[in-house]
Structures are given as C-alpha cells and as structure tokens.
C-alpha cells in the first residue's frame, strides 16, 4: 500500500495538527499553571480539543460523550473538589512539589521514547476516513450486541463507585462536625427514617 507523503497534507490533517497544537498547549498550561482554578479551566480546553479530534477521526458518538461526560461532569466535579478544599483563588507558589526537575526529566524521556517508537512503527499507516466509523447507530449496535455484558458490569461498577463515594465522604458525627452538616443529617433522617433507623443510634454518640 502506497501511503501518501507527509509533504502534502490534506485539509483534515491540517485541522488535526492545529487542534492538536491547541490541545497540547492547553494541557501544558493545565499542568504548569500556579492558579489552581485555571488548571481546571484549561483542562476544559484540552478535553474539548480532544473531542474535536474525535470528530475529525469520524468517531462522532465518542466525541459527544466526551463533551457531555468530561467537560460536563468531570470538570465540574474537579472544580467542586478545588473549592471544597478551599483552593486559593490567586497564585499559589507551592503548587509544584520539589521534585519538578526529576518529573520533567522523566516526562521528557517518556515522550522521546514513545514518539520514537510510534513514529518508527506507524510511519506508513494511513487512515481512510471516507466512510464514517463511529456513527451513533454503529456504536449502539456494537455496544448492545457484542458488548452487553461489559456494559452491564460497568453500570454495576458505577453504582458501587457512587455508593462508595458517598460512604467515604460522609462526615461521621463527631464533636467537630459543623452545624450545617448536622442540619443536613437531620434532614436526611427525616427524609428516610426507616432506612436510617438502624444506624441512627450509633451516630448520636
């Protein structure tokens, strides 16, 4: 198979490279900025860039899922986490730890190795983008015909993770529990008296 050369890029390739540069820049700023909230916002740019790359690769359904779940919920969760841990709004000089230069060396070595291997292995591979590969219909048929069991297992995993997150982050009634938390606990107890009846006496202590 004679692959087209690198010197005459197609329009899709030019768009891909430009979006890739934006994505890489946003990712770099996200891991190096000293303003914590800005890191999460730059992550939005990087994830949106990756969604555009999915669209250019004709993986349309994955692109929308990326926008909905990553940009829509995961970044919001991260912002919640930053604010609940009282992240400073301005510049925080101690955002990076002391082993930054070691980390830089490791990352550069990993990048050099991976790029060398990947370029050497797939220099002549050519993706034919004429027929879309990731329409919603195709993905849905594959997902619910061949991947039903993993899909259901995944839903169980999500449920377990949800319950686990609630259990881990719930504040046990201690002497230093804030009033707001007590109020919400009381509200919960009013909402579901039967379900919490068994554990309520323990929490009184």
């Amino acid at each position, binding site marked *: 198979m004679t692959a087209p050369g690198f010197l005459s890029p197609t329009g899709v390739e030019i768009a891909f490279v430009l979006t890739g540069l934006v*994505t890489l820049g946003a990712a770099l700023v996200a891991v190096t900025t000293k303003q914590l909230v800005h890191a999460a916002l730059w992550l939005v740019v990087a994830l949106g860039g990756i969604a555009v790359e999915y669209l250019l690769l004709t993986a349309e359904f994955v692109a929308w899922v990326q926008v909905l779940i990553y940009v829509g919920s995961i970044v919001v969760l991260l912002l919640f986490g930053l604010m609940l*841990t009282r992240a400073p709004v301005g510049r925080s000089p101690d*955002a990076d730890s002391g082993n930054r230069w070691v980390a830089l060396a490791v990352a550069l070595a990993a990048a050099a190795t991976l790029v060398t291997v990947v370029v050497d292995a797939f220099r002549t591979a050519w993706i034919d983008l004429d027929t879309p*590969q990731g329409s919603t219909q195709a993905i849905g048929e594959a997902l619910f015909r061949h991947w039903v069991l*993993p899909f259901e297992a995944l839903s169980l995993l999500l449920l377990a993770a*949800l319950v686990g997150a609630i259990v881990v982050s719930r504040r046990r009634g201690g002497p230093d529990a804030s009033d707001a938390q007590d109020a919400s606990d009381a509200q919960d107890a009013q909402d579901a008296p039967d379900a919490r009846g068994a554990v309520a006496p323990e929490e009184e202590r």
Partner: protein
Amino acid sequence: MHLVYPAVLAALLFSIGLYGVLARRNAVLVLISVELMLNAVNLNLVAFDVWLRDTLRAGQSLTLFTIAVAAAEIGIGLAIVLQVYRNRAGSNVDELRDLAEPPPTPTGAGAGSDAAEADADKAEAAA
C-alpha cells in the same frame, strides 16, 4: 490521515500528564493530570479503531468504558481527597507520609524521637 498524527499527539499528551502527576503537589491537580493521561489513551483507542475498521467497534466501545471508569475514579478520588483535607487541613500529596518507612537512624536517640512523633500523631488523630 496518517496514523502518526493521532499517535504522536496521544504520546505527547500522556507525557504531559505524567509530568503533572509527578510534579504537582495538590491532590486535585494530580487528578487533573490523571485525566489527561486517560484521554491520551482514549485518543489512541479511537485512532486505532478507525484505522483497523474493527467490526466489533472494540476501540470505541472501550473508549466509552474508559470514560465511565474515569467518571467513577474521579468521584472516589475526590471523596478521598475531601476526607484527607478534613482530617489534616490540607490536600498536599507530599505531606501524606504516614505509611512511609522512617529513615534509618543508627543511634537509639533518633528512634526514640520517631516514636515520640508517632505518639504525637496518634494523639492528634484521636483528638
């Protein structure tokens, strides 16, 4: 499109995420870097799926699964970070040294001070 473009982009994104995981001190920022690494892997999966024209759509299905697992991971991770923040008023990962081996001290005095520190930590945790 050449397969090299998405593959190289994924490799570079993975390296940027690796740098973030190693260099960041705030636990939430470490989670952000982990998200970047997961996205690099997702991009690889989609690119190779489109390249191979897989009839089972294995790459894109796995991408969807990875996104769901990432959502679960970020939920659990943030819950743990919040709990750590509540217990010790900070979420810097390089201060979480409870499970670290104490540095080897040849003299008995050093070990004694370590034990005293551990006692102090216990008292702090109990308070």
